């Protein structure tokens, strides 16, 4: 058997889908998934496959917001983005400044870094009259 082409691999992951933390195993031949084991639900199976092909993560961070109850507003990606883009996305979001008011679900950054995934506000933020002074 030529090792280069017919490589049999077992990869192990810990599912981050919920607090259960199931231990997942992906069996693959030559980079093709043969079997996924150890999950307790569909989320886990999907996560294992995704992790094998291209790890992805949800991103949550905050964005500067002016004239608002708090100085920062929490935002999130509506879906997971490739793991190696997470820091870039946070850096891009740091360059944004918003004006209150903002509604929960408002799109803050469309098609983030060309991933096709939007970043939305995780809460509504009222405009605060007293804070308008700054």
């Amino acid at each position, binding site marked *: 058997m030529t090792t280069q082409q017919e490589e049999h691999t077992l990869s192990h*992951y*810990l*599912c*981050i*889908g*919920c*607090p259960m*933390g199931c231990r997942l195993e992906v069996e693959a031949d030559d980079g093709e998934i043969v079997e996924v084991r150890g999950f307790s639900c569909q989320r886990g199976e999907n996560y294992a496959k995704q992790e094998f092909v291209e790890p992805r*993560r*949800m991103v*949550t*961070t*905050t964005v*500067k917001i002016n004239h608002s*109850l*708090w*100085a*920062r507003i*929490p935002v*999130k990606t509506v879906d997971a983005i490739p*793991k190696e883009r*997470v*820091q870039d996305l*946070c850096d891009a979001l740091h360059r944004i400044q918003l004006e209150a008011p903002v509604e*929960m679900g408002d799109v803050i950054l469309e098609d983030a870094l060309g991933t096709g995934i939007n970043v939305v506000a*995780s*809460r*509504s933020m009222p405009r605060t009259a007293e804070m308008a002074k700054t």
Partner: protein
Amino acid sequence: MLTANLQHLDKDYDVVVVGGGPAGMAAALGAKETGAEKVLIVDREKEAGGILLQCIHPGFGLQHFREELTGPEYAERYKQQVLDAGIHVATDTYVLDIDQDKQVKLLSGTDGVRLINTKAAVLSMGARERTRGAIRTPGHRPAGILTAGLAQKFVNLMGYLPGNKAVILGSGDIGLIMARRLTLEGVEVKGVFEIMPHANGLNRNIVQCLHDYDIPLHLSTTVVDLQGRDRLEKITVAPVDSHFQPDLSKSWDIDCDTLLLSIGLIPENELTRRLKIRLDPVTQGAVVNSQMETSKDGVFVCGNVVHIHDLVDFVSAESELTGRNAGLYVTDQQPPGDNIRLVPGENVRYCVPHTISSDRTHTVYMRASQPMEESILRLGDVYEKKLRYVVPAEMINLKVRPRFLQNFHGETLKVDILPVDNT
């Protein structure tokens, strides 16, 4: 109605809820559902929502809303329901005291003191973080040492970074989450140190907060010295032996300007103590019956002020029940009292509630003292169920149904968690 002006409040309420976090909001809604007309939530922050507002990461609501939400989203869903239900919310307001006749003394920075009356009170003040004093770290007293939750508030709400190079002591979930959070904000996180031989937080957080960012986790290791006059400059860490004694010959120094402590939570029970309510020395929260009523008639409790929960979803469920019972109390519909006392036995640290009644279904929350593989959870000799594993970090809940107790005529039931081969 949402107000920071105490003059806008009524003089008399059916239910006053102290603390507008997830527990307080769910309790207020529960009270409304069972007939309380005038319900007031008092919160010392500038808005209701509690600690959820700074927990910007996902992982909330899988049980309660059947979808994964961030903390602020979970809070906002509740806040909307609270306002829609006509519940009053007093913000920037502190409850100074509740007297034996349930007169509530409120204090606000703008309006001073105001007294209001209530028929029932729900205490849902939550918990506060253990601070440096609780673990007696030696060394100087420079700036830059703070609890992980406070750092979370600085970063996520107020927009301040606590420093540039950070170390985290304690592997609780808040500490792990802050390790990732600070990294994404450009802080160099030099490691997480845990005195126990195992991590305290969930495995998923070790994977997604530490492994993803190559942040080292040092088990059986602790901080033995802090240096820096005005600002923290350096810490010394050392491995510990099985009695938690550090081995100073193997210590090493780390340059850092920030040390975050993630070393546990303590229920915030000052008001409960002022009311002379009976406390459980294990949970450090009130002793409660199955209606979550305390030893003081008409005073109910819910959430982390009773016992520390691991999931906000459980807080919501417990608190809604608490609120419903407060509503039944003020409308004179309270069900008959309990007739069975639960006694924590083998490998059970505590049970909440402390008593139950044989004619209703109850959810009993408990925590194990020791980790155990496959085990049996036993309720006296009336009921048992298999558990796949138990760990102290994960709360166990047990539905106790009237049919389990049909033929039981005793007054106490012992709750045990036993290894499978011993039974």
